[in-house]
């Protein structure tokens, strides 16, 4: 069936993004070596166009291309989120790419393509589309992680990510095939209908399907025990790419998790709650406890991200098919993803700042940052406190929301564990703050920080505080997006 005009209109953001990625590739051929930063500005312009296009989709709720994609408030929320994240990552990358990486054209284009995959992932309405979108995201990220060609750690991280990622994709696909085998359908809605009809032909096959699905998805978001690739990939990758994986690919992973679990597997939620809760508990505990021992800030942030995934999994565990409570858990997760994105991006930006000025990224290298770069130190403190879940910052409200949803779902023990792990995370974040404020600087004098990075940092910091002090606008967007899944 040839695509109709309305179908094309529904995927306008993706079309723009795909076209723009190729535009960047092409522009790279013509730009002289000294003007390569224009590629970054070109990509940013493209993301602005994409974001506007997504905004114009507004409250539409319609299937596209015969039902393989669905464009609703949930999809639009994530499209905007990914576009904004990608824009910030590109802003963070400009100086880094110029100084350390070759082939800037492909770099920016790959970020755009990865974002494209994520947008399609959030809008997918059936298994194969979801898988293909996920692969698009993953392939782009495998390359991006190993982008620092001459750096051994970058190669190692990329290699690990790719091998384990391929393995996880295989598991995921195997699980999807079982799901198809059991239900005879690939569309999420149809699967839910088929599952509601009762145990379908061998519940062992169904259980296997869900286990494999969970395993594959857990890898993608770096949940324990499938997180082993994360620390090496995060440490080795160029720092802007680390920020991108830590923030965007997790959001994309969870968008898929929500789509599958709420739309396709909703009849099974009650049965699998215990397993998901256990996964959440493991992830929070391992992520936070191991983070304490890290010396490298990127590795610490990697484990801290694993811990944050644990909190998000608490939200997944709290999901129920019941619209009122299920929507509460979902909107909590969406809100948390947004707040976490802002805080994590700010934190990584400060790491990039320090790397730009000194070329180092171990925690002891942050010594005396409060004197050498006061605003950066303040911003890092604020973002770490947000990640720890302290008030006036986004993390407090978003965590509170998730825990309230979990408490509603009778998971108070999990909430207690989560709050305890928040306390643990507060400790290792404080150790970074201690270095910045209480340890004297190795050499006096201010660090030279590009104005663009300071400006970006200021915007991110403002976002973190804004969400923390006045979450209502974002919360209502999240709630509207969640309500769509439960109609």
């Amino acid at each position: 069936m040839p695509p109709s005009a309305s179908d094309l209109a529904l995927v306008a953001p993706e079309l723009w993004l795909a076209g723009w990625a190729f535009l960047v590739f092409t522009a790279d051929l013509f730009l002289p070596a000294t003007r390569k930063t224009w590629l970054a500005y070109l990509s940013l312009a493209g993301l602005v166009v994409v974001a506007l296009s997504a905004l114009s989709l507004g409250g539409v709720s319609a299937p596209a291309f015969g039902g393989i994609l669905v464009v609703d408030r949930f999809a639009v929320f994530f499209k905007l989120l990914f576009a904004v994240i990608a824009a910030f990552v590109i802003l963070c990358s400009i100086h880094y790419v110029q100084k350390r990486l070759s082939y800037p054209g492909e770099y920016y284009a790959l970020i755009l393509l990865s974002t494209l995959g994520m947008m399609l992932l959030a809008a997918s309405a059936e298994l194969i589309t979801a898988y293909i979108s996920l692969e698009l995201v993953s392939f782009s990220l495998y390359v991006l992680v190993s982008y620092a060609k001459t750096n051994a750690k970058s190669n190692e991280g990329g290699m690990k990510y790719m091998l384990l990622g391929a393995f996880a994709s295989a598991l995921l696909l195997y699980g999807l095939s079982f799901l198809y085998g059991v239900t005879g359908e690939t569309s999420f809605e149809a699967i839910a209908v088929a599952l509601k009809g009762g145990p379908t032909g061998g519940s062992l096959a169904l259980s296997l399907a869900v286990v494999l699905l969970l395993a594959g998805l857990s890898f993608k978001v770096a949940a324990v025990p499938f997180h082993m690739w994360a620390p090496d990939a995060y440490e080795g990758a160029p720092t802007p790419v680390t920020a991108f994986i830590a923030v965007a690919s997790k959001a994309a992973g969870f968008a898929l998790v929500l789509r599958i679990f709420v739309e396709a597997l909703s009849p099974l939620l009650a049965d699998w709650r215990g397993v998901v809760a256990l996964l959440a508990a493991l992830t929070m505990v391992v992520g936070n406890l191991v983070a304490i021992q890290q010396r490298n800030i990127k590795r610490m942030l990697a484990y801290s991200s694993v811990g944050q995934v644990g909190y998000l999994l608490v939200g997944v565990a709290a999901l129920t098919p019941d619209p009122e409570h299920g929507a509460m858990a979902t909107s909590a997760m969406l809100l948390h993803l947004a707040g976490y994105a802002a805080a994590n991006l700010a934190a990584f930006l400060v790491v990039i700042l320090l790397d730009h000025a000194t070329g180092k990224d171990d925690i002891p290298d942050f010594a005396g940052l409060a004197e050498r770069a006061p605003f950066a130190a303040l911003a890092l403190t604020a973002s770490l406190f947000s990640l720890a879940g302290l008030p006036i910052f986004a993390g407090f409200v978003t965590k509170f929301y998730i825990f309230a949803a979990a408490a509603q779902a009778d998971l108070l023990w999990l909430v207690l564990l989560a709050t305890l792990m928040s306390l643990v995370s507060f400790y290792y974040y404080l150790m970074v703050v201690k270095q910045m404020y209480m340890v004297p600087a190795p050499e006096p004098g201010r660090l030279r920080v590009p104005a663009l990075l300071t400006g970006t940092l200021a915007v991110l910091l403002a976002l973190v505080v804004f969400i923390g002090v006045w979450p209502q606008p974002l919360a209502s967007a999240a709630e509207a997006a969640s309500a769509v899944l439960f109609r």
Partner: protein
Amino acid sequence: MIPDPPLALTVAIPFATAILIFLIPERQQGLIKLLATLAGALCLVLSLWIFVAYNFSRAGFQFQLQSNWLPSLGITFHLGVDGISVLMVLLTGIVMFTAILVTWGLTYRVKDFFAFLMLLVTGVFGTFQSLDLFFFFFFYELAIIPMYLLIGVWGSTRKEYGALKLTIFLTAGSVLVWVGLLATYVAASSASFDLLELEKVTFTADFQRFFFPFFLVGFGVLAGLWPFHTWSPDGHVAAPTAVSMLHAGVLMKLGAFGIIRIGVHLFPEGAQTWMPLLLVLATVNVVYGAFSAMAQRDLKFVIGYSSVSHMGYVLMGFATLNVVAMNGAVLQMFSHGIMTALFFALVGVIYDQAHTRDIAVFGGLARRMGTVAAFFAVGGLASMGLPGLSGFVAEFLVFVGTFQTYPVVAVLGIVGALATAVYILRLLALAFLGPLNERWTGLTDMNRYTWAGTSILVFCLVLVGLWPGPFIDRIATSVGPLVARALGAL
């Protein structure tokens, strides 16, 4: 009709000042200090006005202000004061202003210090006035955040250790409170965090008995309840003067306040079950704190353990659920807050010049620091409960009320008061009186800013001691219904 803004202003002014100070460059130290003092003065005036304008012939919360914040979770920004919190707000205003005055001599990283201090004060004002449990917790946590940096950067003895210990302990306590709050929210099934909504809900006795300890211990950590008090001496000794004043003077009262505002108010049956335990622990606080203070050599450690001991009186009064004792306990919160702020301010004056706090090396300081000695004596006498000063009124009420219901505990409490007399008088004698130790001939008395601040505190001690009427009137307005509510569940 009394307008609503004053409460919101007490929260908004420090917060706005904090942001303003962050934007001013460090070299404008004079401007920063001026801004902070202005904010402090404004908040003091506001808190005075709220105190005076509070109508104590009407029970219930006044000056209420409520607006939607996150409707889907039933969270509203709801502020209000009753007889108890109106006193606490006044205390905060007074201690905030005097703490800023006492810190006028600071020269190291002035901007960061005052910005963090303003954030701390925002949290304290907000907690005392919040009638929404989410925001109570929001401001409660906000008050803990700046502590690590304030102590770790500007503190003294073992500051990193003290800062970390304090922060981790207090955050651990708030973890318990957090879980308790969420459990309350779910059990109430009214989908609201508002105190006035939740007080209409009757929670099952089992629920109350299970979750009351979460609040008791969670808030008790901050209140310095034995055995969770160990952060307090280390934290206060390490903290810079203004921070010690605010922390021991006001923040520890937040803990006790939380126990009654949330614990006793919402869970009367749970309170009745667990109050005997609180009574025992509070008595240990009083006696153990006093005897520990006797054994200390460092001036600040003496004051620190003295705080633990005096908070014991507060918790003892609360634990009896007796109207007279609770009136005394609330007044003790105010009285001890002023007293301990005064002590830390004076110790700060001594330490800044002498660079030691070891009682054994001092002697005859009164000859060089006459005002410091005089004020220290007044504070000490108040601490011992001498009639004519605020400490007497408060402790007397606590003892009378406790004696009515638990005579043995009251006697032990009086033993604690005896021990207090011992260490206070010994301290005065060893440090201030007697022949002047040659080493200290170069010391001078306090500067005029510190004089202004500490004399305000001394004035308050004397005022409450001679004219406690207005204070007790306001306290009694709210304690009466609270106790009736707590006991009525019988």
